[in-house]
């Protein structure tokens, strides 16, 4: 039986959150219109029931193995480590997963839950398009109708993924409100959900939103950390010194960090510094934000003095979000995880470095994590181990990176 279940019977401190109200310390909760409250209660009880059903995990485990391609390799980036001249760098290769990013870990789980609830229609939001592709893929696999909301700015930035979503049989609904990015897509997906709630499951793509989403998505993504922990222990006989992952809303980071929370391992989440946090054009929610409620949960937000949500900026559409998962807020406050930023320029440099030194083209989102690795590895001893999450591959970003480099020169 999969190691999954280790999760549900782990009463150790740090693993017990959220509480029964969906709170991680002061964050989380359930701030949604009344129409959706019963749907969240249904989702919560369906998920709890599924967690006690070995058949659910067997089916999910088989899909992750045979359809999505788990487990993913843990790859030691020897040339990059050599060039940086410090710590050994290991990459958890979520980029090698079917559809090209970690998002499929979550969408397969949620699609099985949707089927369990008898809901035949899926709505999803997407920024970079990776969650949209993963949602459309899971929907196609299980024969569910799928509608993906996407900001029109992101549709321009991620045209390849728009085409992929359509080819998978899903409908892409353009969202023209606000900054025309991920936040606006979430608004529209929630409006669709509230309108069609009896037939529709909202397949939220990250560890945000009302309870039980932050917990449920984290649990589905924790396969990243569980595998990585076992792989590094098997191969190196010890835990890594440092974990690094990018944080937009925060699902790949929560997935990597969670199984290590009780271990003596340092963890760093890297937010999008955009054009620099001083410029105001960034998506560094934990670094620069304040506490508020957006999209159904309390957490850190980018907002003005009157509680209006600010438009974020990042070169990486998947990080371009003014909120962050409530559990990250809690991990920041408790000091368990440090959160830092990397700018657009640093991310592009890291994108180039991994491409040329290792022959791996990373997603611009994941390149933010690598940017921090590049910064910190040289300062660490040669026997230290950094384990970074390579959350997605960069095919979708090739055009964007060229455009950026041309604009710079």
């Amino acid at each position: 039986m999969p190691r999954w279940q280790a999760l549900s019977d782990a009463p150790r401190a740090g693993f017990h959150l959220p509480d029964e109200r969906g709170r991680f310390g002061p964050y989380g909760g359930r701030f949604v219109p009344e129409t959706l409250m019963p749907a969240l209660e249904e989702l919560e009880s369906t998920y709890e029931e599924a967690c006690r059903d070995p058949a659910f995990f067997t089916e999910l485990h088989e899909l992750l193995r045979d359809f999505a391609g788990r487990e993913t390799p843990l790859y030691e980036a020897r040339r990059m480590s050599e060039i940086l001249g410090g710590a050994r760098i290991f990459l958890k290769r979520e980029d090698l997963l079917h559809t090209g990013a970690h998002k499929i870990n979550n969408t397969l789980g949620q699609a099985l839950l949707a089927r369990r609830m008898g809901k035949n229609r899926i709505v999803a939001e997407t920024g970079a398009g990776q969650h949209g592709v993963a949602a459309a893929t899971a929907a196609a696999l299980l024969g569910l109708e799928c509608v993906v909301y996407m900001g029109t700015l992101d549709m321009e930035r991620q045209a390849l993924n728009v085409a992929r979503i359509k080819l998978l049989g899903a409908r892409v609904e353009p969202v023209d409100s606000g900054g025309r990015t991920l936040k606006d897509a979430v608004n529209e997906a929630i409006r669709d959900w509230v309108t069609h709630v009896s037939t529709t499951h909202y397949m939220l793509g990250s560890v945000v939103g009302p309870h039980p989403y932050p917990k449920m998505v984290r649990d589905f993504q924790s396969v990243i950390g569980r595998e990585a922990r076992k792989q590094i222990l098997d191969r190196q006989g010890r835990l890594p010194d440092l974990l690094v992952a990018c944080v937009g809303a925060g699902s790949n980071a929560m997935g990597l960090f969670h199984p290590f929370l009780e271990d003596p391992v340092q963890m760093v989440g890297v937010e999008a510094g955009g054009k620099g946090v001083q410029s105001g054009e960034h998506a560094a929610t934990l670094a620069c934000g304040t506490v508020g409620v957006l999209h159904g949960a309390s957490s850190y937000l980018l907002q003005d003095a009157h509680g209006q949500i600010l438009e974020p900026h990042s070169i990486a559409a998947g990080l371009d979000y003014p909120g962050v998962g409530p559990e990250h807020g809690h991990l920041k406050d408790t000091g368990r995880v440090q959160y830092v930023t990397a700018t657009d320029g640093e991310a592009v440099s890291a994108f180039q470095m991994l491409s040329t030194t290792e022959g791996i083209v990373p997603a611009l989102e994941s390149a933010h994590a690598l940017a921090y690795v590049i910064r910190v590895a040289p300062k660490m001893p040669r026997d230290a181990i950094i384990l970074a999450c390579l959350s997605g591959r960069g095919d979708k970003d090739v055009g964007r990176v060229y455009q950026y480099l041309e604009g710079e020169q």
Partner: protein
Amino acid sequence: MSKTITEAFEEARDEGRGAFIPYLTGGFPDEETFERLLLALDGNGADLLEVGIPFSDPLADGPAIQLSSRMALERGTTPEGVLNLISRARKTLQCPLLIMTYWNPVMKMGLEEFAARAKEAGVSGVIVPDLPPEEAEAWVTAAEEYELATVFLVAPTTPPRRLGIILSVCRGFVYYVSLTGVTGLRSEISQELLLSVRGLKAHTDLPVAVGFGISTPEQGRSLVHAADGVIVGSALIRLVLSQQTPKARVGAAAHFAQSFRDALTMGASCKGSEEVDAS
């Protein structure tokens, strides 16, 4: 001081009417016209007024209220600004007034501060669509301290178990959401909706007002066979947007309020016979 929420519903009932509750986004289409619109609604048939404090991400709202919120925000409207406008208009207004806003602007100002300022501005009640009773304890305490009624929403999806939780904290009136969806227009009032409203009324002594998707006086007339009042927002916003000058906007809003009041008077007068039919 004007009427309380309870008095406004009682007065409408005593006069054989369903209460008419128009919604306007604060600071829309501009501050001056907003104030004139508010006064026009107050003087031409409204029983209670609902004023929105615009929020950047109004996820319970459809296109019309989204647009009005954006227009107000682009003009620099703030929560303090809306409360100031209300405070100024309050001196002439007859109707009790409720604030509709989302939780984040309230949280940002601070619960106590928001409640105190709302009270000071002459607000009678507050509606926060993304604050379910489970998360509302601290707010309800602050609101009660400042004698503000917190109106909660009941939806068609609300199961009986939740109804008890909602009604235990709801004050002023109960806001029944007429449809599973966002605010906006719908075509007809179904028998099912009337039955749901009657079902809800059997569980509470509070008046029940129906909103979300009510756009015409005819719909209002059908609804007050069962409901104590109707809330109309998007249709009014659209009407205001369809007129070009402030004067035309104010005139149209006044006419709109009069038509609703007339319809709600006629509707409520045949309430008894409808109930016999339905049973």
